[in-house]
């Protein structure tokens, strides 16, 4: 299980990455992240929405009301150009961090 601080730091990356595929509403974002990380990252309403609103106020996400195929109104989030631009360096930073941690773990084993 991943620790709470790392989770908080990676939450932005998780949301931006999942929305890079397609626009989604809040519940779909939470479930997809949970599924794709096999439960390692799990958002609840209280952890998800403050983060979504923060990313929206930074201009990285844009939200619009739309309808699900069942006709329910939901607020859909999608990545803006600014968010897409932010995602690439963020991914790079996290990859570097995980590679560095991997090297550290290997050195420790050796």
């Amino acid at each position, binding site marked *: 299980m991943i620790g709470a601080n790392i989770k908080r730091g990676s939450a932005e990356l998780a949301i931006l990455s999942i929305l890079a595929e397609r626009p*989604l*509403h809040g519940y779909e974002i939470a*479930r997809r992240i949970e599924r794709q990380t096999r439960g390692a990252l799990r958002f609840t*309403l209280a952890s998800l929405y403050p983060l979504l*609103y923060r990313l929206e106020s930074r*201009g*990285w996400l844009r939200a619009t009301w739309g309808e699900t195929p069942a006709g*329910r109104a939901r607020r859909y989030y999608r990545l803006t*150009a600014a968010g897409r631009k932010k995602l690439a360096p963020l991914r790079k930073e996290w990859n570097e961090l995980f590679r560095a941690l991997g090297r550290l773990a290997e050195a420790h084993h050796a």
Partner: protein
Amino acid sequence: MPDWNSEASRKLTHSKLSADEREEISRELAGYLEDLCSDAPARGLDDFAATQTAAAELHEDKHLGAHLYRARKENPMNLNDRVKRLWLPGLTILLASAASLTIFQIAGLRPYFQTVWFRGDSMTPHSVYSYLTIYVPWLCVLPFLGAAGAYWSRRAGSSRAIQVAAGVFPVLVFLAIFLVICPFSFAFDGLPAAGSLAAAVVSWVVIPGGALLLGVLPFLRSSSATRYNTAARS
């Protein structure tokens, strides 16, 4: 199933959110909670357990309203964002509109003049007239400049209001200039100045503003008519 909209609204009652914000956020949170409940069978939960889980998520954070308020207000446009989203596109289309007008004038284009009469009052009983100055080819260029400004601003991640401001930026500058000039002209020249100023405002603010806005409008429409397919949810 409980009325999640009312539950969420009650949860946000004591926050600093405005009534409109509270209503929109309540609707959104209610949607999340409804989906959580409808998804319950797939997660091996019965109705009662699903409702309990949803209620627990809603009440998990005692200060949810405050956190949502801070998240919404936390990051107002900083200087760098403001430059990218408003000043840069706005000033560029201001320069482009001035350059295109200059080029038309150098090419020998003459404006179309429309006479406008202003009736006198008891202080100045005589009527005065002024001219609306209309450069038709220039007005034809402005929608493209308005569209460019709005597109640029949108690409930088701005809100609709900022997109509109960036798209009609040249006339906002003209308007600001007229607002500064107006009190002095009224004070010194009275009605004749009012006539000329009104004609100038129509010529350089109202008509060009409409032309710029024509270019901005398609960008506003396309972002409001979004419909997404959510069939991929499994």
